[in-house]
Protein backbone atom coordinates (compact mmCIF):
# COMPACT_ATOMS: atom_id res chain seq x y z
CA UNK A 1 0.00 0.00 0.00
CA UNK A 2 1.26 3.43 -0.87
CA UNK A 3 1.29 5.95 1.98
CA UNK A 4 -0.70 9.12 1.45
CA UNK A 5 0.35 12.36 3.05
CA UNK A 6 -1.61 15.56 3.22
CA UNK A 7 -0.54 17.67 0.29
CA UNK A 8 -1.89 20.90 1.69
CA UNK A 9 1.43 22.68 1.46
CA UNK A 10 3.78 22.86 -1.48
CA UNK A 11 6.93 24.93 -1.31
CA UNK A 12 6.88 28.26 -3.12
CA UNK A 13 9.91 29.23 -5.15
CA UNK A 14 11.07 31.37 -2.25
CA UNK A 15 10.67 28.50 0.22
CA UNK A 16 12.58 26.18 -2.07
CA UNK A 17 15.42 28.68 -2.42
CA UNK A 18 15.52 29.07 1.33
CA UNK A 19 15.80 25.29 1.66
CA UNK A 20 18.66 25.21 -0.87
CA UNK A 21 20.48 27.96 0.97
CA UNK A 22 20.02 26.30 4.35
CA UNK A 23 21.34 22.97 3.05
CA UNK A 24 24.32 24.77 1.51
CA UNK A 25 25.39 26.12 4.91
CA UNK A 26 26.81 29.27 3.43
CA UNK A 27 28.73 27.70 0.55
CA UNK A 28 26.75 27.83 -2.70
CA UNK A 29 26.69 24.33 -4.14
CA UNK A 30 24.43 25.14 -7.07
CA UNK A 31 21.77 22.74 -5.81
CA UNK A 32 24.21 19.85 -5.37
CA UNK A 33 23.61 19.62 -1.63
CA UNK A 34 19.88 19.37 -2.18
CA UNK A 35 20.28 16.61 -4.76
CA UNK A 36 22.71 14.77 -2.52
CA UNK A 37 20.35 14.98 0.46
CA UNK A 38 17.41 13.84 -1.65
CA UNK A 39 19.48 10.88 -2.86
CA UNK A 40 20.48 9.94 0.68
CA UNK A 41 16.90 10.18 1.91
CA UNK A 42 15.54 8.11 -0.97
CA UNK A 43 18.20 5.46 -0.31
CA UNK A 44 17.27 5.46 3.40
CA UNK A 45 13.57 4.89 2.65
CA UNK A 46 14.49 2.27 0.10
CA UNK A 47 16.63 0.35 2.57
CA UNK A 48 13.66 0.50 4.94
CA UNK A 49 11.58 -1.26 2.26
CA UNK A 50 9.28 1.70 1.70
CA UNK A 51 7.37 1.32 -1.56
CA UNK A 52 7.86 4.90 -2.80
CA UNK A 53 11.24 6.05 -1.55
CA UNK A 54 11.50 9.03 -3.90
CA UNK A 55 8.10 10.36 -2.88
CA UNK A 56 8.97 9.99 0.78
CA UNK A 57 12.25 11.82 0.23
CA UNK A 58 10.31 14.68 -1.40
CA UNK A 59 7.79 14.68 1.42
CA UNK A 60 10.62 14.93 3.95
CA UNK A 61 12.24 17.85 2.18
CA UNK A 62 8.87 19.58 1.81
CA UNK A 63 8.36 19.37 5.55
CA UNK A 64 11.79 20.79 6.20
CA UNK A 65 11.12 23.60 3.71
CA UNK A 66 7.83 24.34 5.45
CA UNK A 67 9.49 24.50 8.84
CA UNK A 68 12.10 26.86 7.43
CA UNK A 69 9.39 29.01 5.91
CA UNK A 70 7.56 29.19 9.23
CA UNK A 71 10.59 29.74 11.45
CA UNK A 72 12.96 31.59 9.15
CA UNK A 73 15.81 29.26 10.00
CA UNK A 74 16.69 26.08 11.86
CA UNK A 75 19.89 26.61 13.73
CA UNK A 76 19.72 24.22 16.64
CA UNK A 77 20.48 21.14 14.56
CA UNK A 78 22.84 20.69 11.59
CA UNK A 79 20.86 20.44 8.32
CA UNK A 80 21.72 16.83 7.51
CA UNK A 81 20.78 15.63 10.97
CA UNK A 82 17.60 17.64 10.95
CA UNK A 83 16.65 16.06 7.61
CA UNK A 84 17.18 12.63 9.14
CA UNK A 85 14.92 13.47 12.08
CA UNK A 86 12.22 14.66 9.68
CA UNK A 87 12.71 11.54 7.56
CA UNK A 88 12.28 9.34 10.61
CA UNK A 89 8.88 10.90 11.29
CA UNK A 90 7.86 10.49 7.68
CA UNK A 91 8.99 6.88 7.81
CA UNK A 92 7.03 6.12 10.99
CA UNK A 93 3.92 7.72 9.51
CA UNK A 94 4.30 5.66 6.36
CA UNK A 95 4.58 2.51 8.47
CA UNK A 96 1.40 3.43 10.34
CA UNK A 97 -0.33 3.90 7.02
CA UNK A 98 0.83 0.48 5.89
CA UNK A 99 3.42 1.81 3.51
CA UNK A 100 6.14 -0.54 4.55
CA UNK A 101 6.53 -4.20 5.33
CA UNK A 102 7.01 -4.83 9.05
CA UNK A 103 10.53 -5.28 10.39
CA UNK A 104 12.00 -8.63 9.53
CA UNK A 105 9.55 -9.20 6.71
CA UNK A 106 11.26 -10.42 3.61
CA UNK A 107 9.06 -10.08 0.58
CA UNK A 108 11.08 -12.40 -1.57
CA UNK A 109 11.13 -15.22 0.94
CA UNK A 110 7.44 -14.78 1.61
CA UNK A 111 6.40 -14.69 -1.99
CA UNK A 112 8.32 -16.96 -4.32
CA UNK A 113 6.57 -15.33 -7.26
CA UNK A 114 8.44 -12.14 -6.45
CA UNK A 115 11.59 -13.88 -7.56
CA UNK A 116 10.46 -12.96 -11.06
CA UNK A 117 11.75 -9.53 -10.17
CA UNK A 118 15.29 -10.87 -10.01
CA UNK A 119 17.27 -9.41 -12.88
CA UNK A 120 16.75 -11.68 -15.82
CA UNK A 121 19.83 -12.90 -17.58
CA UNK A 122 19.82 -10.77 -20.68
CA UNK A 123 19.88 -12.51 -24.04
CA UNK A 124 22.44 -11.45 -26.55
CA UNK A 125 20.21 -8.78 -28.12
CA UNK A 126 19.40 -7.32 -24.70
CA UNK A 127 23.07 -7.38 -23.77
CA UNK A 128 23.96 -5.56 -26.92
CA UNK A 129 21.27 -2.97 -26.28
CA UNK A 130 22.43 -2.46 -22.72
CA UNK A 131 25.99 -2.05 -23.86
CA UNK A 132 25.00 0.38 -26.60
CA UNK A 133 23.12 2.49 -24.06
CA UNK A 134 26.09 2.54 -21.72
CA UNK A 135 28.43 3.49 -24.54
CA UNK A 136 26.16 6.36 -25.51
CA UNK A 137 26.08 7.50 -21.91
CA UNK A 138 29.86 7.29 -21.69
CA UNK A 139 30.13 9.49 -24.76
CA UNK A 140 28.14 12.16 -22.95
CA UNK A 141 30.62 12.59 -20.11
CA UNK A 142 34.03 14.28 -20.34
CA UNK A 143 36.82 12.02 -21.67
CA UNK A 144 38.71 12.40 -18.42
CA UNK A 145 35.74 11.04 -16.44
CA UNK A 146 35.30 8.26 -18.97
CA UNK A 147 38.89 7.17 -18.54
CA UNK A 148 38.64 7.32 -14.79
CA UNK A 149 35.50 5.24 -14.49
CA UNK A 150 36.74 2.56 -16.87
CA UNK A 151 40.08 2.41 -15.08
CA UNK A 152 38.52 2.45 -11.63
CA UNK A 153 36.30 -0.55 -12.20
CA UNK A 154 38.92 -2.65 -13.89
CA UNK A 155 40.10 -5.84 -12.25
CA UNK A 156 38.78 -8.20 -9.64
CA UNK A 157 39.03 -8.44 -5.89
CA UNK A 158 42.57 -7.89 -4.59
CA UNK A 159 43.89 -6.87 -7.99
CA UNK A 160 41.18 -4.23 -8.23
CA UNK A 161 42.11 -2.78 -4.84
CA UNK A 162 45.78 -2.58 -5.77
CA UNK A 163 44.89 -1.13 -9.13
CA UNK A 164 42.88 1.62 -7.45
CA UNK A 165 45.76 2.43 -5.12
CA UNK A 166 48.04 2.83 -8.11
CA UNK A 167 45.52 4.93 -9.97
CA UNK A 168 44.96 7.19 -6.96
CA UNK A 169 48.70 7.64 -6.47
CA UNK A 170 49.19 8.58 -10.09
CA UNK A 171 46.35 11.07 -9.98
CA UNK A 172 47.65 12.56 -6.74
CA UNK A 173 44.50 11.60 -4.86
CA UNK A 174 43.76 9.49 -1.84
CA UNK A 175 41.97 6.24 -2.60
CA UNK A 176 38.97 7.64 -0.79
CA UNK A 177 38.90 10.76 -2.96
CA UNK A 178 39.28 8.62 -6.07
CA UNK A 179 36.40 6.40 -4.96
CA UNK A 180 34.16 9.39 -4.36
CA UNK A 181 34.99 10.79 -7.75
CA UNK A 182 34.28 7.44 -9.41
CA UNK A 183 31.05 7.18 -7.45
CA UNK A 184 29.84 10.56 -8.72
CA UNK A 185 30.59 9.59 -12.31
CA UNK A 186 28.87 6.26 -11.82
CA UNK A 187 25.77 8.04 -10.51
CA UNK A 188 25.61 10.14 -13.66
CA UNK A 189 25.97 7.08 -15.85
CA UNK A 190 23.34 5.17 -13.89
CA UNK A 191 20.89 8.02 -14.30
CA UNK A 192 21.67 8.18 -18.00
CA UNK A 193 21.18 4.44 -18.46
CA UNK A 194 17.88 4.64 -16.63
CA UNK A 195 16.72 7.42 -18.93
CA UNK A 196 17.71 5.36 -21.95
CA UNK A 197 15.81 2.36 -20.62
CA UNK A 198 12.73 4.49 -19.98
CA UNK A 199 12.77 5.95 -23.47
CA UNK A 200 13.45 2.62 -25.20
Amino acid at each position, binding site marked *: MKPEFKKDWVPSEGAFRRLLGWLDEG*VDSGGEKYLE*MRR*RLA*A*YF*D*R*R*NCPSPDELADETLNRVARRLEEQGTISET*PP*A*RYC*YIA*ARFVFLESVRQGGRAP*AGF*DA*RRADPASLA*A*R*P*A*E*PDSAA*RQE*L*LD*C*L*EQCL*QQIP*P*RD*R*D*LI*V*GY*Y*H*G*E*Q*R*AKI*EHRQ*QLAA*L*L*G*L*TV*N*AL*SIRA*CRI*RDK*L*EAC*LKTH*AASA
Partner: protein
Amino acid sequence: MSSEKRDEARLTGYLLGSLPEDEAERFDELSVADEDFAWRLRIAENDLVDAYVRGELSGETLERFETHYLSSAKRREKVRFAGALRLLEDRLAASPEGAAPATRLAGSGSKERPPRHFPAPRLTAAMRLAPAGLLAAAALLLLVPAGYLFFANLRLRRELTRVQTQRASLESRARDLQKGLERPPVEVPALRQPEGAVASREPIAKLQVLSFVLLPQTRGPGRVETVSVPPGTDAVSLQLQLESDEFPRYRVALRTAASDRPVWRSGSVRSARAGDGRAVTITVPAALLTPRHFSAELTGLRAAGGAEPVGSYAFRVVLR
Protein backbone atom coordinates in the same frame (compact mmCIF):
# COMPACT_ATOMS: atom_id res chain seq x y z
CA MET B 1 40.22 -9.37 10.89
CA SER B 2 41.46 -5.78 10.51
CA SER B 3 39.24 -2.93 11.66
CA GLU B 4 38.86 -1.84 8.06
CA LYS B 5 37.59 -5.29 7.10
CA ARG B 6 35.27 -5.30 10.09
CA ASP B 7 33.83 -1.93 9.06
CA GLU B 8 33.34 -3.22 5.55
CA ALA B 9 31.56 -6.30 6.87
CA ARG B 10 29.23 -4.10 8.99
CA LEU B 11 28.40 -1.97 5.98
CA THR B 12 27.67 -5.07 3.92
CA GLY B 13 25.53 -6.42 6.75
CA TYR B 14 23.61 -3.16 6.84
CA LEU B 15 23.03 -3.19 3.09
CA LEU B 16 21.86 -6.77 3.27
CA GLY B 17 19.52 -6.10 6.18
CA SER B 18 21.30 -8.45 8.54
CA LEU B 19 22.31 -6.04 11.32
CA PRO B 20 20.40 -5.91 14.62
CA GLU B 21 17.67 -3.26 14.52
CA ASP B 22 19.34 -0.84 16.93
CA GLU B 23 22.56 -0.88 14.96
CA ALA B 24 20.68 -0.58 11.68
CA GLU B 25 18.95 2.53 13.04
CA ARG B 26 22.27 4.03 13.99
CA PHE B 27 23.53 3.38 10.48
CA ASP B 28 20.29 4.86 9.09
CA GLU B 29 21.05 8.08 10.84
CA LEU B 30 24.67 8.14 9.76
CA SER B 31 23.70 7.36 6.18
CA VAL B 32 21.76 10.62 6.05
CA ALA B 33 23.49 12.85 8.58
CA ASP B 34 27.17 11.99 8.18
CA GLU B 35 28.78 12.86 4.88
CA ASP B 36 31.81 10.61 5.27
CA PHE B 37 29.69 7.66 6.27
CA ALA B 38 27.25 8.31 3.41
CA TRP B 39 30.10 8.14 0.91
CA ARG B 40 31.61 5.04 2.46
CA LEU B 41 28.25 3.34 2.32
CA ARG B 42 27.72 4.32 -1.29
CA ILE B 43 31.14 3.02 -2.31
CA ALA B 44 30.58 -0.21 -0.37
CA GLU B 45 27.21 -0.67 -2.06
CA ASN B 46 28.70 -0.24 -5.53
CA ASP B 47 31.42 -2.74 -4.70
CA LEU B 48 28.87 -5.20 -3.34
CA VAL B 49 26.71 -4.98 -6.44
CA ASP B 50 29.76 -5.34 -8.67
CA ALA B 51 30.85 -8.41 -6.72
CA TYR B 52 27.40 -9.89 -7.27
CA VAL B 53 27.40 -9.47 -11.04
CA ARG B 54 30.94 -10.85 -11.17
CA GLY B 55 29.82 -13.96 -9.31
CA GLU B 56 32.09 -13.20 -6.38
CA LEU B 57 29.45 -13.54 -3.65
CA SER B 58 28.75 -16.85 -2.01
CA GLY B 59 27.05 -18.49 0.95
CA GLU B 60 24.91 -16.37 3.22
CA THR B 61 26.00 -13.11 1.61
CA LEU B 62 24.76 -14.29 -1.76
CA GLU B 63 21.53 -15.55 -0.25
CA ARG B 64 20.90 -12.29 1.58
CA PHE B 65 21.71 -10.36 -1.55
CA GLU B 66 19.14 -12.25 -3.56
CA THR B 67 16.45 -12.37 -0.92
CA HIS B 68 16.86 -8.94 0.60
CA TYR B 69 18.82 -6.59 -1.60
CA LEU B 70 17.08 -7.51 -4.82
CA SER B 71 13.64 -7.01 -3.29
CA SER B 72 13.74 -3.34 -4.29
CA ALA B 73 13.26 -2.07 -7.83
CA LYS B 74 15.64 0.80 -7.15
CA ARG B 75 18.36 -1.59 -6.13
CA ARG B 76 17.72 -3.90 -9.06
CA GLU B 77 18.44 -0.88 -11.25
CA LYS B 78 21.86 -0.70 -9.66
CA VAL B 79 22.45 -4.35 -10.45
CA ARG B 80 21.42 -3.74 -14.04
CA PHE B 81 23.91 -0.92 -14.32
CA ALA B 82 26.66 -3.02 -12.76
CA GLY B 83 25.89 -5.71 -15.31
CA ALA B 84 26.30 -3.19 -18.12
CA LEU B 85 29.61 -2.06 -16.66
CA ARG B 86 30.75 -5.65 -16.53
CA LEU B 87 29.79 -6.18 -20.17
CA LEU B 88 31.78 -3.12 -21.11
CA GLU B 89 34.84 -4.44 -19.37
CA ASP B 90 34.46 -7.76 -21.13
CA ARG B 91 34.16 -6.00 -24.45
CA LEU B 92 37.33 -4.06 -23.80
CA ALA B 93 39.12 -7.18 -22.67
CA ALA B 94 38.01 -9.11 -25.75
CA SER B 95 39.07 -6.49 -28.23
CA PRO B 96 42.20 -7.09 -30.31
CA GLU B 97 43.75 -3.95 -28.79
CA GLY B 98 42.92 -5.01 -25.31
CA ALA B 99 44.12 -8.60 -25.20
CA ALA B 100 43.89 -9.93 -21.66
CA PRO B 101 43.66 -7.59 -18.70
CA ALA B 102 47.00 -6.75 -17.22
CA THR B 103 46.04 -8.21 -13.89
CA ARG B 104 45.59 -11.62 -15.45
CA LEU B 105 48.74 -11.29 -17.49
CA ALA B 106 50.60 -10.49 -14.32
CA GLY B 107 49.36 -13.71 -12.80
CA SER B 108 47.78 -12.02 -9.84
CA GLY B 109 46.02 -15.18 -8.85
CA SER B 110 42.54 -13.79 -9.37
CA LYS B 111 40.50 -16.52 -10.94
CA GLU B 112 38.05 -15.98 -13.73
CA ARG B 113 34.59 -16.80 -12.48
CA PRO B 114 31.36 -16.94 -14.34
CA PRO B 115 29.47 -13.74 -13.56
CA ARG B 116 26.00 -14.01 -12.14
CA HIS B 117 23.18 -13.13 -14.51
CA PHE B 118 25.50 -11.35 -16.87
CA PRO B 119 27.66 -14.00 -18.50
CA ALA B 120 30.90 -12.66 -19.80
CA PRO B 121 30.51 -12.42 -23.55
CA ARG B 122 33.66 -12.40 -25.57
CA LEU B 123 32.42 -9.80 -27.99
CA THR B 124 34.33 -9.36 -31.17
CA ALA B 125 32.67 -6.14 -32.27
CA ALA B 126 34.98 -3.22 -32.83
CA MET B 127 35.64 -1.19 -29.71
CA ARG B 128 33.79 1.97 -30.41
CA LEU B 129 34.90 3.20 -27.07
CA ALA B 130 38.40 1.97 -27.29
CA PRO B 131 40.76 4.71 -26.22
CA ALA B 132 42.61 6.07 -29.17
CA GLY B 133 46.02 5.68 -27.68
CA LEU B 134 46.11 2.27 -26.13
CA LEU B 135 49.71 2.11 -27.22
CA ALA B 136 50.31 4.49 -24.38
CA ALA B 137 49.30 1.73 -22.03
CA ALA B 138 52.60 0.07 -22.75
CA ALA B 139 54.46 3.13 -21.53
CA LEU B 140 52.30 3.31 -18.43
CA LEU B 141 52.94 -0.30 -17.67
CA LEU B 142 56.61 0.62 -17.39
CA LEU B 143 55.71 3.23 -14.80
CA VAL B 144 53.44 1.08 -12.71
CA PRO B 145 54.54 -2.15 -11.10
CA ALA B 146 52.62 -5.26 -11.99
CA GLY B 147 51.27 -3.64 -15.09
CA TYR B 148 48.06 -2.17 -13.81
CA LEU B 149 46.38 0.62 -15.74
CA PHE B 150 45.54 -1.58 -18.63
CA PHE B 151 42.90 0.83 -19.75
CA ALA B 152 45.05 3.89 -19.70
CA ASN B 153 45.16 5.88 -22.88
CA LEU B 154 46.97 8.89 -24.19
CA ARG B 155 44.72 11.41 -22.56
CA LEU B 156 45.07 9.80 -19.19
CA ARG B 157 48.78 9.46 -19.65
CA ARG B 158 49.17 13.12 -20.53
CA GLU B 159 47.05 14.04 -17.57
CA LEU B 160 49.05 11.84 -15.27
CA THR B 161 52.31 13.21 -16.56
CA ARG B 162 51.04 16.71 -15.96
CA VAL B 163 49.88 15.83 -12.47
CA GLN B 164 53.14 14.08 -11.65
CA THR B 165 55.18 17.01 -12.87
CA GLN B 166 53.07 19.42 -10.85
CA ARG B 167 53.31 17.19 -7.85
CA ALA B 168 57.08 16.85 -8.10
CA SER B 169 57.39 20.60 -8.40
CA LEU B 170 55.02 21.09 -5.49
CA GLU B 171 56.85 18.61 -3.31
CA SER B 172 60.13 20.27 -4.13
CA ARG B 173 58.67 23.66 -3.20
CA ALA B 174 57.14 22.18 -0.06
CA ARG B 175 60.56 20.82 0.93
CA ASP B 176 62.08 24.23 0.35
CA LEU B 177 59.38 25.83 2.45
CA GLN B 178 59.86 23.26 5.16
CA LYS B 179 63.61 23.92 5.20
CA GLY B 180 62.89 27.59 5.47
CA LEU B 181 60.62 26.98 8.41
CA GLU B 182 63.25 24.92 10.15
CA ARG B 183 65.70 27.84 10.22
CA PRO B 184 65.46 29.15 13.79
CA PRO B 185 64.10 31.51 14.82
CA VAL B 186 61.89 32.82 12.07
CA GLU B 187 59.37 35.51 12.67
CA VAL B 188 56.06 34.18 11.46
CA PRO B 189 53.68 37.01 10.75
CA ALA B 190 50.46 37.01 12.73
CA LEU B 191 48.11 35.23 10.42
CA ARG B 192 45.16 34.87 12.70
CA GLN B 193 41.96 36.23 11.27
CA PRO B 194 38.29 35.82 12.08
CA GLU B 195 37.19 32.21 12.18
CA GLY B 196 36.85 30.61 8.79
CA ALA B 197 38.44 33.46 6.91
CA VAL B 198 41.34 33.10 4.51
CA ALA B 199 44.29 34.47 6.36
CA SER B 200 46.53 35.36 3.48
CA ARG B 201 47.41 34.41 -0.03
CA GLU B 202 51.13 34.31 -0.59
CA PRO B 203 52.41 33.96 -4.10
CA ILE B 204 55.69 32.08 -3.72
CA ALA B 205 57.21 31.90 -7.17
CA LYS B 206 54.24 30.65 -9.14
CA LEU B 207 52.84 28.54 -6.35
CA GLN B 208 49.58 29.58 -4.79
CA VAL B 209 49.94 28.85 -1.10
CA LEU B 210 47.33 29.71 1.51
CA SER B 211 48.16 30.02 5.19
CA PHE B 212 45.91 29.26 8.13
CA VAL B 213 46.40 29.25 11.86
CA LEU B 214 44.93 26.37 13.84
CA LEU B 215 44.46 26.13 17.57
CA PRO B 216 44.67 22.89 19.51
CA GLN B 217 41.25 21.37 20.17
CA THR B 218 41.69 21.58 23.91
CA ARG B 219 41.63 25.35 23.75
CA GLY B 220 38.36 25.63 21.85
CA PRO B 221 36.24 22.59 22.50
CA GLY B 222 33.73 21.94 19.78
CA ARG B 223 35.02 24.64 17.51
CA VAL B 224 36.20 23.57 14.09
CA GLU B 225 38.20 25.96 11.94
CA THR B 226 37.19 26.32 8.32
CA VAL B 227 39.90 26.17 5.70
CA SER B 228 38.55 27.67 2.51
CA VAL B 229 40.48 26.57 -0.56
CA PRO B 230 39.87 28.41 -3.84
CA PRO B 231 40.54 26.80 -7.22
CA GLY B 232 44.14 27.06 -8.39
CA THR B 233 45.60 26.68 -4.91
CA ASP B 234 48.73 24.53 -4.96
CA ALA B 235 49.41 24.12 -1.29
CA VAL B 236 48.01 25.03 2.06
CA SER B 237 50.26 26.04 4.93
CA LEU B 238 48.88 25.16 8.36
CA GLN B 239 50.38 26.81 11.41
CA LEU B 240 49.65 24.63 14.44
CA GLN B 241 49.94 26.77 17.55
CA LEU B 242 51.56 25.05 20.51
CA GLU B 243 50.29 25.19 24.08
CA SER B 244 53.86 24.51 25.19
CA ASP B 245 56.99 23.76 23.22
CA GLU B 246 58.54 20.72 24.88
CA PHE B 247 60.07 18.78 22.04
CA PRO B 248 63.02 19.47 19.77
CA ARG B 249 61.12 18.19 16.75
CA TYR B 250 57.61 17.30 15.79
CA ARG B 251 55.74 15.22 13.27
CA VAL B 252 52.22 15.79 11.91
CA ALA B 253 49.74 13.27 10.48
CA LEU B 254 46.64 14.41 8.67
CA ARG B 255 43.60 12.20 9.11
CA THR B 256 40.00 12.24 8.00
CA ALA B 257 37.06 11.00 9.99
CA ALA B 258 36.50 8.32 7.37
CA SER B 259 39.80 6.55 7.74
CA ASP B 260 42.15 5.47 10.45
CA ARG B 261 45.09 5.81 8.13
CA PRO B 262 46.64 9.23 7.69
CA VAL B 263 46.15 10.80 4.28
CA TRP B 264 49.39 12.70 4.69
CA ARG B 265 52.42 12.77 7.01
CA SER B 266 55.02 15.43 7.48
CA GLY B 267 58.71 14.83 7.98
CA SER B 268 60.18 15.82 11.32
CA VAL B 269 59.87 19.57 11.77
CA ARG B 270 60.98 22.11 14.36
CA SER B 271 58.74 24.63 16.00
CA ALA B 272 59.26 28.32 15.32
CA ARG B 273 58.23 31.55 16.94
CA ALA B 274 54.75 32.68 15.99
CA GLY B 275 53.62 35.94 17.52
CA ASP B 276 53.91 35.54 21.26
CA GLY B 277 54.07 31.79 21.17
CA ARG B 278 55.51 28.90 19.23
CA ALA B 279 54.02 26.97 16.35
CA VAL B 280 54.71 24.07 14.04
CA THR B 281 54.01 24.85 10.42
CA ILE B 282 53.37 22.27 7.73
CA THR B 283 52.64 22.66 4.06
CA VAL B 284 50.14 20.25 2.53
CA PRO B 285 49.38 19.75 -1.17
CA ALA B 286 45.98 21.32 -1.81
CA ALA B 287 44.93 18.30 -3.87
CA LEU B 288 44.65 16.32 -0.64
CA LEU B 289 42.28 18.77 0.94
CA THR B 290 38.90 17.70 -0.34
CA PRO B 291 35.77 19.10 1.31
CA ARG B 292 35.41 17.25 4.60
CA HIS B 293 36.65 17.27 8.18
CA PHE B 294 40.29 16.72 8.94
CA SER B 295 42.35 16.38 12.03
CA ALA B 296 46.04 17.28 12.13
CA GLU B 297 47.60 15.05 14.80
CA LEU B 298 50.77 16.52 16.28
CA THR B 299 53.36 14.20 17.77
CA GLY B 300 56.42 15.35 19.69
CA LEU B 301 59.73 13.57 18.96
CA ARG B 302 62.11 13.24 21.91
CA ALA B 303 65.82 13.86 21.43
CA ALA B 304 66.61 10.51 23.02
CA GLY B 305 64.16 8.73 20.77
CA GLY B 306 60.50 7.95 21.18
CA ALA B 307 57.43 10.00 20.46
CA GLU B 308 54.48 11.38 22.34
CA PRO B 309 51.12 12.68 21.11
CA VAL B 310 50.88 16.42 21.68
CA GLY B 311 47.47 17.36 20.41
CA SER B 312 45.08 17.42 17.54
CA TYR B 313 43.84 20.32 15.42
CA ALA B 314 40.45 19.87 13.79
CA PHE B 315 39.46 21.74 10.68
CA ARG B 316 36.94 21.58 7.90
CA VAL B 317 37.84 22.11 4.27
CA VAL B 318 35.45 23.89 1.94
CA LEU B 319 36.11 24.64 -1.70
CA ARG B 320 35.32 28.14 -2.88
